């Protein structure tokens, strides 16, 4: 005797609360168990790379803001860094300090958004609002610095656009102990919760071999035990000067990724703390850069550690004011590839947990 059951084809997205944007996942369900998952992307494709071929380098920077819109500072930086590498520019120290401070604050803000939305996906609503309250403080700091709350357009080739307004550094100093206390509270609220643990422990597991093979980066890679953080491995900016740890875990599950992100927030705060302590009050914020930036003909691939992993910028220059070819290596795009493999044999509920655990931003996936 056999009972014939129907396979259900469900379109998760492009309009679905848990896809965090216009992402579509075509899922075949046997009961509640996923037998096949096919991601469909491109709904947010804006052709940034094509547009960039007709824009000057400074004009491209606001486009990078809109890629990973939760972490616009690191995106700004990767482009500026690529051009600066091509031009062999020396960046004033004060500018580098400002860059590090905003990048690390942005990392905290980005992880906070992840933390809130992840718990929202898991079904707890309050953490979402707590996270946004604290992110608001960072956003306000950025607002004061560059007049924007989300798409900052703060960095320029050769430095940063705005100097820290008077009293800004003190506000950052005050923010650090506050945020530390909040993170502690969050951990008390969520990390020990039995229901939460049962939702994330041993879910979405993969080993380091798989992670490397899929080219995962950031927390997704470090959760499998590989100590690979570009801030340490291929130091850029001032990161060599700061004392911080790269948290890793060997569990490779969603809980490991959760813990690492919490830990990263703490590390970022400690970097910011050191940076504001050493912050030079005097100094220039822009290097001597020609009005029209025309890097020499050549090719460069610069990469940095964004909150989501390795963000890279591959520029082919022909010595003109516009790049001949500009390609971004977007961590979300690469990290997302592993999703179909992780989903097979999981339930609909775990879909949300695993997908959220990868932490993607759709603006970056589609670019």
């Amino acid at each position, binding site marked *: *005797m*056999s*009972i*014939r*059951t*129907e396979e259900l084809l469900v379109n998760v997205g492009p309009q679905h609360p848990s896809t965090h944007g216009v992402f579509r996942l075509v899922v075949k369900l046997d*009961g509640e168990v996923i037998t096949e998952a096919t991601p469909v992307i491109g709904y947010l494709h804006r052709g940034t790379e094509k547009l960039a071929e007709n824009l000057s380098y400074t004009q491209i920077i606001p486009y990078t803001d809109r890629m990973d819109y939760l972490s616009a500072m690191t995106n700004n930086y990767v482009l500026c860094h690529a051009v600066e590498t091509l031009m062999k520019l020396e960046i004033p120290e004060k500018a580098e300090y400002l860059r590090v401070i905003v990048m690390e604050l942005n990392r905290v803000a980005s992880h906070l958004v992840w933390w809130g939305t992840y718990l929202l996906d898991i079904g707890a609503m309050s953490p979402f609002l707590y996270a946004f309250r604290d992110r608001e403080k960072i956003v306000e700091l950025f607002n004061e610095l560059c007049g924007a709350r989300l798409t900052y357009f703060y960095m320029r080739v050769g430095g940063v656009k705005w100097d820290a307004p008077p009293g800004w550094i003190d506000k950052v100093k005050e923010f650090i102990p506050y945020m530390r206390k909040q993170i502690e509270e969050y951990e008390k609220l969520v990390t020990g919760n039995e229901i939460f643990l049962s939702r994330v422990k041993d879910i979405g597991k993969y080993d380091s071999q798989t992670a490397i093979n899929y080219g995962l980066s950031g927390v997704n890679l470090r959760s499998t035990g590989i100590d690979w953080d570009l801030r340490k491995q291929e130091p850029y900016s001032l990161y060599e000067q700061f004392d911080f740890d790269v948290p890793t875990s060997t569990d490779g599950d969603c809980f490991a990724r959760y813990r690492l992100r919490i830990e990263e927030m703490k590390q970022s705060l400690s970097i910011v703390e050191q940076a504001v302590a050493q912050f030079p009050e005097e100094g220039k914020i822009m290097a001597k850069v020609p009005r029209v930036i025309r890097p020499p003909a050549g090719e460069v691939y610069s990469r940095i550690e964004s909150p989501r992993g390795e963000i890279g910028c591959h520029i082919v220059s022909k010595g003109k004011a516009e790049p001949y070819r500009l390609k971004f290596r977007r961590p979300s795009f690469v990290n997302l590839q592993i999703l179909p493999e992780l989903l097979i044999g999981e339930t609909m509920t775990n879909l949300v947990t695993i997908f959220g655990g990868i932490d993607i931003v759709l603006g970056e996936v589609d670019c």
Partner: protein
Amino acid sequence: MSGQFIFFMLFSVTAIGGAIMMLNMERIMYMIASAAVTFLSLAGIYVLLHAEFLAFVQILIYAGAITILMIFGIVLTKHEEKREEPKRRFYHISLFAGVVGLFAVFYYVINQSAFPAVTREIAQDQTKEIGLLIYSQYVIPFELVSILLTIALIGAIIIAKREGK
């Protein structure tokens, strides 16, 4: 005309109506809904007979559990929405004759037989009464039924396990 009679008529009509609907409906979902109506009407008749315990157990088990189980089965499995009934004239006529005959027999027998007019005191606490009866007078049938149900349960598990392999 007492209220009891009105309600009895109401419940018996809905019970019979539900049964007929169940046989005649084309979509399975409707069939089950009709069956549920019958179950509920029967529970209503139980209430009229002062058998509240039985009535609510009837709702709990039949209207609640069994109906839902059937709906579950239907929702989860593939089934034909409609099926063509072959037109068989002779079959229908003989069926009708059979039903009329059966009704006649029932009517005659019920009319003829004299029910002993025993007036029993309605127990104040029926639940207790039922419990006492089950565990004293009817303990052996009760235990046998429970064994039967256990066997059915185990059988179901075994079938489901084989299916899983």
